[in-house]
């Protein structure tokens, strides 16, 4: 046995419950934030199925929109949309914490970085809306 293996035998690891994240509000929000990844993947899959339907022709597209209005799917997509909003809001807030931006020798305040991202979101959203409804 190596010395590190011997030391490892003495290491105490406190068992962590699967429900650790329900104990505190901040833990809960953290896990919700991370879980948004699942719903983001779902929405990409949904959009891919839409693209497939569009590629298959008018009937397939109409059928897709029809199925998309069914109650279960709407409920799922409402939840998914809520998680997308959570992702966007938390992601934008994290950016200034993840990187320090300096302009002309002075540090750009976090609020400016966050605001710039929302401006970018507004521009992209307006563009997508225009592209699709013109």
């Amino acid at each position, binding site marked *: 046995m190596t010395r590190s293996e011997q030391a490892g035998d003495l290491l105490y690891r406190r068992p962590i419950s699967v429900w650790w994240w329900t104990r505190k509000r901040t833990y809960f929000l953290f*896990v919700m934030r*991370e879980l948004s990844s699942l719903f983001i*993947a779902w929405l990409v899959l949904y959009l891919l199925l839409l693209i497939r339907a*569009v*590629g298959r*022709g008018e009937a397939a597209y109409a059928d897709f929109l029809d199925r998309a209005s069914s109650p279960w799917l709407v409920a799922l997509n409402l939840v998914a949309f809520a998680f997308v909003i959570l992702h966007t809001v938390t992601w934008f807030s994290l950016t200034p914490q993840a990187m320090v931006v300096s302009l002309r020798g002075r540090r750009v305040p976090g609020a400016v970085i966050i605001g710039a991202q929302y401006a970018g979101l507004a521009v992209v959203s307006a563009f997508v809306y225009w592209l699709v*409804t013109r």
Partner: protein
Amino acid sequence: MSTPRMKFRIYPFIWLAFSGGGVMAAVFLPALAFLFALAFPLGWIDAPDHDQIAAVVGHPLTFLVLLGVFPVILIHAAHRFRYTLYDGLQVKHKGLVALLCYGGALAGSFATLVFLGNALTA
């Protein structure tokens, strides 16, 4: 005197894709999800007719943009969900989880290529 070379590690590139995917998801998905998953199916806003949407989806620029955006969002989601399983649910099968997560992202990326390619009107 030359500095010793750093060992090459793949993780920073995975993190870069994760980060880029997070930005893409934050910026593109709100509008796309609102319009195509809620507003159009529920009739809040008139859905584009097939000719309109096919022209947009089939455009070569759309092909290029979405081919970049969707896979990177999938990598972001895969990477994040992988760690959600480890840290959140204390799942211990680390190799299997990594395989399923990134494998899923890879499959989705391939599907992106196929579906967008089929819809191309070029």
